[in-house]
Structure formats: C-alpha cells, structure tokens
C-alpha cells in the first residue's frame, strides 16, 4: 500500500533524474535547474554519497547545462545537510572550475566564493584552502585562473601561517608562464589587496602591481591599471606618491594604446582614489595628454570623461583648471578628424555649462556647440541636440535656436532613415524647450512631413511623436494645428497615407479626448470604411476598436455598430476577422449594452 503511494510521488522525481542524461539538452537543462527538488527527494545523505559524485563527473556536458549546475551548487548547502557538510560541494565545483569555458568557470568560482562563507574556520583550512592550492598549482591554466578569484575569500578567515602560504601562491600566479593566468591574477589583484593587512599591501602587493604593470603582454598591463586604482584607495595619501604614482604615470604614457585607453576609461575612478592634490599636479597634465593622444580610441575614451573629470575637480581651482588646461584641448577635439571622438565629446560637452556658469558658457562654450551643430556627422549633431536640456537651464535655448533650426532640418531630411528616426525621438523634448510658438513656426511642417515618409518606421515614429506633442501642447492646439492636416490625408490617393491617418487617430484619440474624437475624427474613420483597399478597411475596424473606449455609447450604437456590422460581411477575410474582433471587444468594454441584440 505504501508502495503504491510511493510510486505516485516517486514518479516525477524519477523522470527528473532520468532526464539528467536525456539526449535533449533542453530536458537536461530543465532537470539541472530542478536539482534542488531531486536532492530534496533523495535526502541529504544520498545527495552527498550518490548525487554529488555523479555530478562531479558530468563535466562533459554542454556549457549551458554546466553553467546551470555551477549556479545551483552555490545554494546547495542546506540540501547536503547544512554548513557541517558544505565541503561535500567542493569536488563538483572544483571540476567545474577547470573547464575551458570562461562563463562556466566564472560561475563555479562565484559559487565557491559563496559557499566559502558557509565553511567554519576549521573546515575552511581543512577543505577549502587545500582546494584553492590544488587549483593554483594545477597543470592546466584553466584551474590556475580560477584559483586567482578564490584567495580573497579565504584570506581573512585563516591563521597567519596559512595566510603566508596564500600570499605565496598568489605571488607565484602573478608570474605564471601563461598570459591567461597573469591576466586573471592582474584582474584580481585589487580585490586581493583589499583583504590584506596594510603592511602586506605595501610589501607584497606593490611589487606585484609594479611587475604586472610592466608585463611584456599589453593585455596584462592594461588590467593592472584597474588594480592600481583599487590599491590607491587602500593606501594613505603620503604613500601614494612613492608606491603607486610612478607606475600609473608610466601606464598613462604606455607604448600600447590599449593601456592608455584603459587609463582614460578608468580616469574618474582614479581621480577619486588619488585625491585632489595628486589630481591637480598629476592627473590634469595626464588628462590633457590623453585628450591629445595620437590614437583616436584613446581620445574617444578621454572625451567621454571630460564632464565627470571637470565636475570632480577640487572646487577652489576648478574653474581655473578648466579654463586654462582643459578647455583648450576640448576646443581642438571639436574639430578632430575622427567622428567617434567628436561624437563622444558632443555627448558630454553641454554638461560643462552648468559647471562654468552663464558668462563662460556664452563666451567659450556656445561657439563650440555651434560648430558641433554644423558637424558633418549626424551623430555629433544628434548628441548635441539630445543634451540641450543642460544648456537650457544655464543660458536658455533661444541663444542656440538660430543654429539649431538648420541642424534639425538637415537631420530631419537625412538620407539615412535611422538618423531621421533619432531626431524624431528628440522632437517632444525640443518642442518643450523651444515653446509652442517657435514650434508652430519652424518645426510643425517637419513633423507633418514625416507622416508621409517612405519608410514605415519613420511614419510610425511620427504618429507617436504627434501624440507626445499633444500631451505637451494640449487638445486645443491639436485641434487647430495637426488634426485638420491628419484628417486631410484621408483623401490622399496613396493608400499608405490614408492608413497613416488611421494610425494617427489611433494614437491621438485618447489625448485629444471624447469631443474632438467624436466630432472630427470618427466621421472620417467611418467614411473610410468604404475604401477600395482592403488594408484600409481592416485598419478602420482596428481603429474603431481602438477609439471605442473614448466614444460614448450613443455614438457607438448609432455610428460604429452599423459600420462594423457591414465590415463583418466584407468579402476580404482579414477585414471580416478584424471587424468581428472589434465587435467582441467593444461589446466587452461596454458591458453588453451596445451589442446585446447581436
């Protein structure tokens, strides 16, 4: 009897276990993701003695299965019997930490880091540390790279003898034969330094940092830059100059552009780590050099940091430094030969106006904005336009409007539809800042022209843009300026334009409200139900469905119902389909009041 009952509850688990070896990867993956269910059914002892040994050897599987397994094992402690038995999880994670696939190894290391916290100090030394040592001295570089990420989690919790061993192992890996391991050590150096006693940071970490930062492989050197930033945050100010700065200065002038790029990319973090004095004396000239670097990639990375760097300069000398040191470089970048440099600069340059204030902005920055607004690359112009809000607060956008307009018009008519799409998306923002008058005068015609663009994505974005404009300027403005034009297109000879009218109505009915919709839009929609093109007719049905909630029930009953009923008998099956769909939806929202006769 118990057996029969047992069968029922066993069955789903039995399926899960069998599917661990199914030929279909997806089924194996599903099973692995429910590993906790299997373990729960097996109980802690069988999980330890049978399931884990099996999993330890399943490293032949596909990456995605191994990845899921590595993740599961990180939260398996309870299922093997709690912290007392957590070390049982080490063998499968150890084998996962040696596979060739980086994502799997990283996940295994992450899970190992997690369960290391669940080890008692004794277990840590008896089980976990030996595993780290085994990985650190493994034959394959994969295991040694994994070891690099594990030192920092066990170091704080072991005896001083073991600590010395761990430091020794880390040192060894920093001078490993393979660049892969040196890269891993270099990228974990900062993390490891954080858990070391300050004396050891100075005596152990600094020499390692110096060595890695002058490694023969630039892929190793560039990772040392980030470590340098972390180390700098750990050291007292008076030691920075002697211990870290020589190496960082060397990195900023490295022969390899990739290393200099890394310095530029980490510049804000570096600035924060070394403090105001070193920033003034060292980083400002270094930053100038990066902005003038011979490699465009480096200039791009540095240009991206212009605003953040300036913002974080010490307040007492901020303006002087910017005006005398940074701004001259920025001026040169505005006419850089490389479009990515200019575009990076354009995305941050407007931010300088809040730092420099009104007068400086008008005198020094405004000319630069104007040059960039006329740049030959659309991306540069777009980046300026998308950040207009920063200047608006300082000097008001009117200062720019003379130059802004030609730039916008040109972008609006760009041959690349993606550029046109990008500028449409900034229209509501521009409209808000330029005001309704300026908009009506200069930009309204552009917005209407996009409605008949030959690319659908543009027409679609244009309808959405109209909705946002109405949200900004209100229904009355809509009724006077755009609704007549939109409705006029209903008589266009091109059916695509007639459909655009319907799409616009879809987008506008709600923001325009019941009155305009019923009075002005509905008659046009209804009239279009007799269009000779079926695509227009079924879009009428969809449109009616969409605007139904805005209309009152008498309009629905008197006007919409007969039209939809007629469309429901259309010869075209798509028209029929959408008409019937509209009928059922409108019936639902109206609580069966309208169509209860049908």
């Amino acid at each position, binding site marked *: 009897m118990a*057996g*029969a009952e*047992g*069968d029922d509850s*066993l*069955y789903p*688990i*039995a*399926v899960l*276990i*069998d599917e*661990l*070896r199914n030929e279909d990867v997806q089924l194996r993956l599903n099973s692995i993701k429910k590993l906790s269910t299997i373990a729960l*059914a*097996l109980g802690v002892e*069988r999980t330890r003695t*049978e*399931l884990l040994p*099996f999993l330890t*050897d*399943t490293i*032949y599987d596909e990456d995605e299965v191994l990845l899921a397994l590595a993740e599961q094992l990180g939260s398996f402690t309870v299922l093997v019997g709690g912290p007392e038995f957590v070390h049982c999880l080490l063998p499968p994670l150890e084998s996962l930490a*040696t*596979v*060739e*696939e*980086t994502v799997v190894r990283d996940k295994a290391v992450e899970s190992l880091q997690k369960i290391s916290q669940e080890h008692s100090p004794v277990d840590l030394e008896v089980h976990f540390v030996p595993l780290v040592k085994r990985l650190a001295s493994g034959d*394959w*570089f*994969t*295991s040694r790279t994994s070891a690099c990420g594990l030192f920092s989690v066990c170091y704080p919790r072991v005896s001083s003898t073991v600590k010395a061993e761990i430091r020794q192992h880390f040192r060894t890996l920093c001078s490993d034969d*393979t*660049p*892969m391991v040196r*890269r891993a050590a270099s990228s974990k150096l900062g993390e490891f330094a954080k858990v070391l006693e300050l004396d050891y940071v100075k005596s152990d970490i600094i020499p390692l940092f110096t060595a890695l930062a002058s490694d*023969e*492989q*630039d*892929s190793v050197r560039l990772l040392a830059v980030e470590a340098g930033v972390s180390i700098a945050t750990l050291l007292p100010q008076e030691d920075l100059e002697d211990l870290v700065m020589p190496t960082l200065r060397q990195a900023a002038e490295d*022969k*390899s*552009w*990739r290393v200099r790029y890394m310095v530029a990319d980490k510049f804000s973090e570096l600035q924060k780590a070394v403090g105001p004095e070193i920033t003034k004396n060292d980083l400002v000239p270094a930053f100038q050099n990066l902005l003038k670097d*011979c*490699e*465009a*990639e480096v200039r791009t990375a540095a240009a991206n940091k212009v605003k953040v760097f300036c913002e974080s300069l010490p307040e007492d000398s901020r303006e002087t430094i910017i005006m005398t040191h940074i701004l001259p470089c920025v001026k040169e970048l505005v006419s850089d030969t490389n479009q990515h440099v200019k575009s990076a600069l354009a995305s941050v340059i407007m931010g300088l106006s809040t730092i420099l204030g009104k007068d400086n902005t008008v005198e020094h920055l405004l000319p630069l904005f104007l040059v960039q607004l006329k740049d030959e690359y659309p991306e540069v112009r777009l980046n300026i336009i998308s950040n207009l809000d920063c200047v608006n607060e300082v000097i008001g956008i009117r200062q720019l409007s003379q130059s802004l307009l030609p730039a916008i018009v040109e972008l609006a008519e760009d041959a690349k539809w993606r550029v046109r799409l990008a500028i449409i998306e900034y229209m509501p923002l521009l409209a808000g800042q330029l005001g309704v008058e300026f908009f009506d005068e200069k930009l309204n015609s552009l917005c209407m022209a996009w409605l008949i663009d030959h690319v659908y994505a543009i027409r679609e974005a244009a309808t959405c843009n109209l909705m946002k404009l109405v949200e900004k300027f209100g229904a009355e403005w809509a009724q006077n300026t755009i609704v007549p034009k939109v409705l006029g297109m209903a008589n266009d000879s091109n059916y695509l334009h007639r459909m655009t009218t319907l799409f616009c109505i879809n987008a506008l009915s709600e923001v325009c409200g019941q009155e305009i919709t019923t009075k002005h839009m509905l008659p046009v929609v209804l009239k279009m139900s007799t269009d000779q093109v079926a695509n227009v007719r079924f879009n009428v049905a969809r449109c009616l469905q969409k605007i139904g909630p805005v209309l009152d029930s008498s309009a629905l009953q008197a006007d919409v119902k007969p039209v939809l009923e007629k469309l429901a008998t259309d010869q075209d099956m798509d028209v029929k389909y959408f008409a019937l769909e509209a009928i059922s939806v409108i019936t639902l929202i109206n609580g069966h009041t309208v169509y209860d006769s049908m």
Partner: protein
Amino acid sequence: EAGVGGFYQNKKTFFSFFFILVCDPADVISTVEFNQTGEFLATGDKGGRVVIFQREPQGEYNVYSTFQSHEPEFDYLKSLEIEERINKIRWLPLHNPAHFLLATNDKTIKLWKVSERDKRAEGYNLRDEEGRLKDLSTVTTLQVPVLRPMDLLVEASPRRVFANAHAYHINSISVNSDCETYLSADDLRINLWNLNITDRSFNIVDLKPENMEDLSEVITVAEFHPHHCHLLAFSSSTGTTRLCDMRASALCDQHAKLFEEAADPSHRSFFSEIVSSVSDVKFSHSGRYLLTRDYLTVKVWDLNMENKPVETYQVHDYLRTKLCSLYESDCIFDKFECAWNGTDSVIMTGAYNNYFRMFDRASLRDVTLEASREVCKRRAVLQPRRVCVGKKQKETDVSVDSLDFRKKILHTAWHPKENIIAIAASNNLYIFQDRLTPNGHHNTPEIQSAPPKWQTQPNPPTY
C-alpha cells in the same frame, strides 16, 4: 648491405628521412598543421573534413579523430557558392585535457574541441539499459545514475562559429600569443577576434581602395609573432611583407616595417610581379626571423633588416625559362607553403613532381626529396633527387622537361621539436621521420660537413 646503405645515406644527406605513414583521406588535402607539442597532427581537405592524427608511444601517427568541419553553402545575396574546403587549421595552446583548433573555409571560421570520454552513466529509474520502459510497479526507490568505465570515445564538437566578417576569401588565421585573440585575413582585410566572442571582430588592416579599379595588391598571408602579442606580419601579392605594431594604433594601416628587396631592373619581365608574390610567411620559432616563400625562392629576413633578405634559397630555379607555359597552365599561381624545423636551422618547402626541398642554413646545403607511393616503402630511407637542365649526368637524374606539374607539394609541416615532417601530396599524407631520432629523443641531427657530390648545384641555366 642495408646497414652500410643506411650509414652511407647518413653521410650523404643532412637528414635521412624514412617514411612512416601514408594516409589516404577521401579528398585532396588543403592544409597540414602540427599542434604545439607535436603529439597531434591535423589535416584539412577539400571536402571540408578535418582528420587528426595522434602519435603513438612507438612514434607512429594514427588517426585519432575525423570530423566534418564545414559543409558547402550558398550565399543567396551574392549568388555565390561557398566551398567547404578547409583553407587553414591552427591549434590553440593547451587549455585542459581537451584539444582545440580553429578551422576555416573561405568565409567561416570554426573553433573545434576534440575531447576524450571514457566513462558513461548507467542506471535509469523508468527504463532498463536497452531503453525499454520498466513496469512502474517495480519502481519503488529512486536510483541515481552511476558512471562506469567504457571504451575510449573521441568526440569533436563545434564550440564557436565566427561568421559574416569577411567579404573576400579567408587565406589565413593565426592565434595570438596572448591566447585571447586571433586574426583572420582575406584578400583585402585583416580582422582581429576574441576567441570567446563570435558576434564582433575588429578590422585592423584594410587595403580596399575607394575605387576597386585602383586595386594594386592583395593580402596573401598574415601571421602573428610567436612571442610578442602586438606584432603581426602580412605579405602581399607585390612581394612585400609588412610588420605591424598593434600598440601604435587601433588600425594597422601604417606598417612599422616593410620588408622588400629592390627588383633587379635587368631581370624585369611580364612575370616579375607574379613570381614575386609571397605565398607563405612564417616567423621562426625564435621570433627573430621571417621566412617568406615566393614562386621560385624561399627567403629568410631578419626583423632588423628591411631592405634585403639575409638568405635566399632557390627552390626550382630551372623553371625560370618555363614561366610562359607555367602561366598558361595557371601553375604560376600555385601557393607553396614553407616551414621551419624546431631549431630554426633548416627550412622546408614544396615543389613540383611530388618533390620537396630542404635547406640547411648553417652549411648552405640543400636536398630534393620525393614523396610518392612508388618510393615510399615502409621504413625505406628517402633517396635524394636531382633535376637536370640539359643532359642527364646520372641514370637517376630527372630532366626538367619530364617534371609532372600536376603533382605538386603545396602543404608541408614540421614537428615543433623533432625531425618529423608531414607532406601533403594531392590526397596523400606522408609522414617522414629522421632515422637519427627513431624514438623521438634525439633532437639535433648531425650535419655532415663535406658536401656530397649530388648536392652541387646544376650549372646556372643560361637565359
């Protein structure tokens, strides 16, 4: 007699290679490559297959794994067939017990993992080992599968596919010494990939002119320096080889060095540029030298001297008078590869008539050997061949006019440490081993000092 013969051979040649294997893949071999330890040898063929040989403890190479790497495809946008032919194979440095290699056809590069499995899981809950469903009433406890030993199974699985980055045909791939990146080169561009990222690559060299009518040269080969991760060399159809430093800038259009020998104006002819096109470039293991192969010569360049090679070896100078007919038969466009031995002291390259050539750099002696079914009897020592212009001096001499130009040895490889060579001749793969190193322990073959008679160069042909 045989012992004496062996000794005699040994005195005559600087290597006395004997034949250890001939393998006959289904299709014409298109590339041959040893891995870093020399324990494995991979070949790719015209049919898109990769065959991997493993060296047995006795020194023989046996087939380890065979798999279909590429399939024929069709580019519907350009209405072009994409052949499955494997253009190049490159092994990755060892990661773990599995082996990894990159194989490419004209358009797509694939990363393959070749691994061994010797265990399999046994024990299902709901079915027996034959896969039949069990009677559910007999299932009263849960069973966890157990792993049992089984016969060794070698599996090849595609790990990454690097596609859609080349508009022209890929001619080279090369793994960087940083073990993180590799390059792929086609006729006009060189791209840099990260081995872990398949959806983007960086274009580092672009020779494509604005107007294709201005096209003056194409890239023929590209290779990374063996130790310096920032250096790469690429050669062109105009006979130049450029060295680029990737530290200097992200785009390597500006070369750091240009290796080119000034052409002798008295020898200029219609064929000058065609025969100077570089068909292969190999860095020496030391990283100090570059070996380049053009149609008639192999040249050794010192990286520190750009204006002329430090050594030039004639591969088949007797063809200089035959360029016209070689042009008509398209043979003049054959792309011969070249190889260094493990200590950079000897150079090997292929020729016609199933001949291949070796040049000893120290003694300046050279030898012509033949790889063909007829001469390759098991463990037989290869006899040197001699091509003569004009009258035969010896019975065994071969006249230039009787050379078979359809039998060509384009692809050769030298074991990274020992004197074992692999020669691809049409659809045969020959592996030869120096008899001085039968067990693979003797690395530096003795080089005899007295030049033997057969090695004297034929009199320079008159033009």
